[in-house]
Structure formats: structure tokens, C-alpha cells
């Protein structure tokens, strides 16, 4: 049981939680994730750690309301408890002084990018962060990102904030302007796929942090498997970060949609129980 010590709405569907987890706060590094389960019959879902406070013994999670499990989590209030939480899991991001790094994130992908941006900056990199979302309301954590970035480029699909365009437009502008040594991308799978296609064209090494379906999160089930360079890898123990140019994003997108019908049904069932 982990107590929620604060809850903050970034938008109606995107919520930041600070959760008591002193052991995880102590051992986590940039790139790590936790598995979270709400209620006795809850599902185990992976969430990447956005931040940690050693003094308070808390970690920060940013959650977007999507299906049953994320909605149940988002319905919890300050003082409530998360039934089960385990971590930190996965391999930490490899941090060194690469030179100039583009951090390209979309939507809630900005939250797990936060510690990576901070760690890259601390290692001496010049960090250019491209923040992308559908509209202004969905741009999150801009101030914190600015704190650790040498430059922040905001892109919105509808042009309601920053520059109108996609994350790839923002990245391409930087590549055309200066020498870049590495790109790190976190966001929806479809976004990372197009970031990867773009950076491959420019032969810019790129890391993508994958968020696949998981059950146990410790290497036991293989639900999270992806093809990387033609080999099957487990996101939970081999990742979550991989060489984006080697990842078979089409297969990953296909696998992510595997339970869509069942999930839709379960969500309708859950929403119906809320109304009653």
C-alpha cells in the first residue's frame, strides 16, 4: 500500500501524483518504471517514474486517463492508497556526455522524459527539448523542462501554442540548423515511429522508451515483447529504451492493439458501474 501525498491536475485527463515509496525513491534512476495495481481485482500496469523526492520519500507519476485501470488510478485522491506498487523496474537510461541531444516528447511522454532531460543536462550535454501535443492544454511540465533544457521548442498540432506542426517538424528544424549527436524520444508509439523514420533519414542515433502491455513487469510473462533488430526483446527487462531504428514499430502498434476490443468492453462496463 502506497499513500498518495498530492494530486495535481495538468488537464482534465492528465494527472500528477506524488506517492509515498521511500525505497523506490532511493533506488530509482532516469528511465525506470513501476508496476501499479488498483484494488484487489485490479490490473498491473506499467508507469514510468517522472521524478522522486528523497527527503519526502516520494516518487512522481503522471497518468493519462485512458482505460479502466488508469481511470481507477485517476479517481484516487490525496490520502488514498495505491493497492500495490513495485519498482523501480527496467534498465536505467544510459547517461553520458554525448554532446548535443534532442529530447522529443509527446503528450504525457513529457513526464518520463523529465528525469532524462535533467540527467543529460547534469552530464554536460547541450539539451534541446521538443515538447509536442495536440493543443496548448496538453503541454505539461513546461517550466520544469525549461529548467534543465538549453532550449525548448513547443509544437502543437493546432497551433494553439508554440509552433504549429508535429514533433518531427520541430526535430527536423534543429537537425537542419546544427549538429546533433543523439535523439531520445518518449510518447505514443505512433509518434515514436515517425520520429524514428525521420532521424534514420538523417542517421541520427535515436533511443525510444517503449511502453508496451505488461503483466508482471519483471521478465516473467513476455507480454511486452518487441522485435529489435529482428530479435525478440522484453521491454520490462531488456528495455524500456531501445535503438529506435531497430525497433519494429508496426509490430509494436499491432501488439498494443491486441486487447482493444476486450478493453473497450471492460471500460464500458466500468463507466456503466460509475453511473449507477
Amino acid at each position, binding site marked *: 500500500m502506497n499513500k498518495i501525498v498530492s494530486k495535481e491536475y495538468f488537464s482534465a485527463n492528465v494527472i500528477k501524483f506524488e506517492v509515498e515509496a521511500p525505497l523506490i525513491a532511493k533506488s530509482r534512476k532516469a528511465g525506470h518504471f513501476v508496476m501499479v495495481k488498483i484494488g484487489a481485482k485490479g490490473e498491473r500496469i506499467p508507469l514510468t517514474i517522472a521524478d522522486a523526492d528523497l527527503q519526502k520519500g516520494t516518487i512522481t507519476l503522471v497518468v493519462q486517463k485512458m482505460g479502466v485501470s488508469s481511470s481507477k488510478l485517476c479517481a484516487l485522491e490525496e490520502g488514498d492508497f495505491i493497492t500495490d506498487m513495485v519498482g523501480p*523496474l527496467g534498465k536505467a537510461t544510459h547517461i553520458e556526455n554525448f554532446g548535443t541531444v534532442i529530447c522529443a516528447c509527446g503528450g504525457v511522454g513529457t513526464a518520463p522524459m523529465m528525469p532524462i532531460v535533467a540527467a543529460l543536462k547534469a552530464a554536460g550535454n547541450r539539451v534541446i527539448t521538443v515538447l509536442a501535443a495536440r493543443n496548448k492544454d496538453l503541454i505539461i511540465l513546461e517550466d520544469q523542462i525549461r529548467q534543465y533544457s538549453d532550449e525548448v521548442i513547443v509544437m502543437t498540432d493546432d497551433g494553439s501554442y508554440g509552433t504549429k506542426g508535429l514533433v518531427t517538424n520541430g526535430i527536423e528544424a534543429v537537425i537542419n540548423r546544427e549538429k546533433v549527436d543523439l535523439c531520445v524520444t518518449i510518447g505514443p508509439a505512433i509518434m515514436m515511429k515517425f520520429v524514428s523514420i525521420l532521424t534514420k533519414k538523417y542517421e541520427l542515433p535515436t533511443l525510444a522508451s517503449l511502453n508496451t502491455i505488461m*503483466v508482471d513487469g519483471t521478465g*516473467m510473462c513476455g507480454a511486452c515483447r518487441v522485435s529489435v533488430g529482428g530479435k525478440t526483446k522484453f521491454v520490462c527487462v531488456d528495455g524500456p529504451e531501445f535503438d529506435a531504428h531497430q525497433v519494429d514499430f508496426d509490430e509494436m502498434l499491432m501488439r498494443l492493439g491486441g486487447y482493444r476490443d476486450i478493453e473497450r468492453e471492460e471500460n464500458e462496463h466500468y463507466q456503466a458501474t460509475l453511473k449507477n
Partner: protein
Amino acid sequence: MKTNEDRAEAWRVELRNAIKAKDRTNIERVHMPELDAEYRSHNRVEEVNLGITAEQAMEEAKRCLDCANPSCMLGCPVGIDIPSFIKNIERGDFQEAAKVLKETSALPAVCGRVCPQEKQCEGVCIHLKMKKDAVAIGHLERFAADYERISGNISVPAVAPANNIKIAGVGSGPAGLAFAGDMAKLGYEVVIFEALHEIGGVLKYGIPEFRLPNDIVDVEIQNLQAMGVHFVTNCVVGKTISISDLEQDGFKGIFVASGAGLPRFMNIKGENLVGVMSSNEYLTRVNLMDAANPNSDTPVFQGKKVAVIGGGNTAMDSVRTARRLGAERAILVYRRSEEEMPARLEEVKHAKEEGIEFLTLHNPIEYIGNEQGRVTHMVLQVMELGEPDASGRRSPVEIPGKLETIEVDEVIVSVGVSPNPLIPQSVKGLEVTKWGTVVVDNDTMQSAVPIIFAGGDIVRGGATVILAMGDGRRAAKAMDEWIKKSR
């Protein structure tokens, strides 16, 4: 090994002399009552084996000759005093029988259900030498453990006075639980760390309800808690806390029993299609997450044409689960013949009764999917048996060009597991084989890092509940001696 201490007691001598050995061997072996096959093939949770009655148990107990040198005990990896518990059943003292079991086994109700007795205690029973059926030791063990549990009068094994020495276990599966029980009896302060949210390891996530109900595992765990064992769930040693954290916290010995976590795949075309998964994933969803229950948030495919690849007990559990979840065709695909199948005979028999199709001498070489990436067909290579291989079993050989394609909407791959890499990766100096198993001394289970002992599948790479428990017991004994010596 503690053997036959009460064999010379008056009650037992009298009991032994009451019936002639010949009359004992002439009694027919008891038959385990089972749930109707058609009914159970659609019923997800009810146990198949119903257990024997007190009358049946007392009659079966008469069959045991109470040998002076009981070979059955040598066949038991945890060294249960088998004649003693059986003779207690014969005289009608079922509570005492359960007590005898618990002296050496932390999980009698579990072992009575899932042990391969035919290969262990029953496999060396004296009756076999006389061309008779072995004493049904497994059924009797289950009877005594169930009797005690249902009576509500559950005895807690005696625990030595606290020695205030902290020791840790990593993983709460059968090896960890057996270790915990023995160390608690010796007076140690035992803390078991479990990565999942439930205690029990493979007993909970792996073995299905119809073979081993979770409630029964929970009672055995409560018994350990009553002996003073502490459990910490949601804690991955090697991630949440490190082995050196444990040492700094004052733990004087660490028993690693983190299991065989990683499922193996065959690396064939289409294996990552939607609907193709490991048996670990399938069974974890159904058993640990209760996914087939409408009140559970975890989804699970409930295929109509399900193929399970493999011939072990896990494959059998998967295919029987698929049948129960509504598969019209539940097919076991195995590359050798039925004779080479590693699964227990009882499981094979039960599976066949439940309408499982056995497609032996077939091996998948490709899966085909639809536009949504969902598996729809599998291509099978037909095999024949060739010369014996390293395992002593006749090896399967492809018949060139002989292929079959069958329709499937779900495939469960159950071709083995690899050891969980988390601990080997996170501990410096630990000796690891090329298969990723931890190297230990065969007698003491001590690793190259003296404070670390290991056992179960992390050492064996995929074995049985009872062998894991035997490892736990040996590690406990050796760790106790090592700690006393080094103080």
C-alpha cells in the same frame, strides 16, 4: 534425516502385527474420486481430484507394510517420515499424521496435490517389487493435510526460542517457503521478499485452481506466519533493495529462490502475432490476476481454437485451462510422441478425459495472422522419432516436406523457461552457468558468495515444486550450520 523414530512404540508394533503383510498387500489401491470430466471441462475453478474419505484413507493406510528400512523415504526430496504419518492414519489419529508431515514439509496440502509421487516415494514403494500398486502416499498426504485444515484445529510446528539472527529469503515460491519453515523452527527471524503482490510464487501464478486452489496455499502461508515468518510483497531484491542493502540491514544469510522467470520462445515466424503468448503470461493472467472472472480488470483471450505448444506439466495446465475457458478445440502440440512427454501421467489422463486433442509428432514452424495481426493459422512440421538424444529420449526428426496447416485463434507457447536474470545481474561475484542458473554446492546450496545460498529453479532451471522444497530444506540446514560456525 530423521527416520522412523516412533516405529518401536507399542501402538505401532501392535498395529504392525495386527494384520499379516500378505493381507495388507492384497488390499486394492484406493481410487481418487474425481469431478465428472464433461462438467469439469467447462468449470474453471473446481478441483478435479475430490480427495478420499476417512474410511478410504484408513483402508489405504493398511496397505503400508511399515518397512524397517522404508525406501519411500529415500524417494522423498524433503524426507517426510512416510510410514509414521501413514500408520497414524491407520490408527485413526489424523491430527498426529498431519503433525508428522509438518515436521519436514512446510506445504503438505500442496505436495499431496502436485508432487509427481509416481516418480518419487511411490516409485520406490516395496509393493512395486511384488507387482502390486504402490501405496497411495500422495492421496494419504493430501487427506491428512486436508483433514487438519478442515477441522480448523491446525497445529503450528514448535519453534525454537528466538536467536535474534535475521535471515532473508528472495522469492516466496516452494523453495522459499520450505526454507522459511525450517529456519523459523530453528529460531531465526525470517523475512521473505516477494516481487509480486501475492505470496506463493508459482503455486499462485502458475498452477491452476483446478489442480491447486489458492485458498489451500494461503492456509500453508498463514501457518508459516503463525511460526513467525514475515513476508514483504512488492519488493524486488536486486531492484527495490540490493543484496548489500540486506547485509547492511543485518541479515546474516540470504537464500535466493527467485525462480525460472523468463519464458522461452521458439523464434519462428509470426510468434509475436496477437494471440500468441507464453504459458507464463496466459497462466499468470488466469491464475494470479483472475482474468477470466468478470470482476477482474485484467483481460485474457478466451480462444475457441487454442493450440498449446509443449509436453510438460505447464503445457498441460495451459491446455486444460483453455478448455475450461471455452475452447471448442484445445490442442496440445508436441514434437515427440506421448511416451516421451514429461508431463505427469495423471495430468495426461485428466486432459484426455476433458477432451484435449493430442497432436504429437508435430512442431510449429510458422504462425499466420490476419490484417489486424491476430493469429489465424499455424503451420506444423510433421515429425518422426529418430535415435535417442542427450536426454535419453528418442529425438524428433522432421519428415521432409510433410507440413500441415491448422486453424487457431490462440497459441500458448510452453517450451520451457530460463532463470530470472535479476539477481545474477545485480550481485558481483556470483557464479552463473551459461544457462543463467546460479552455481551452488550440491549439498549446502551455498553460492560463490558465502552469504548467498540458492535453490529451486534459479539453480535447476525448471524443475518441480518438491525438488525446490528439498533445496530450501538443504539450504536451511547448511545456512544454520554456516552461521553457527562463523559466529
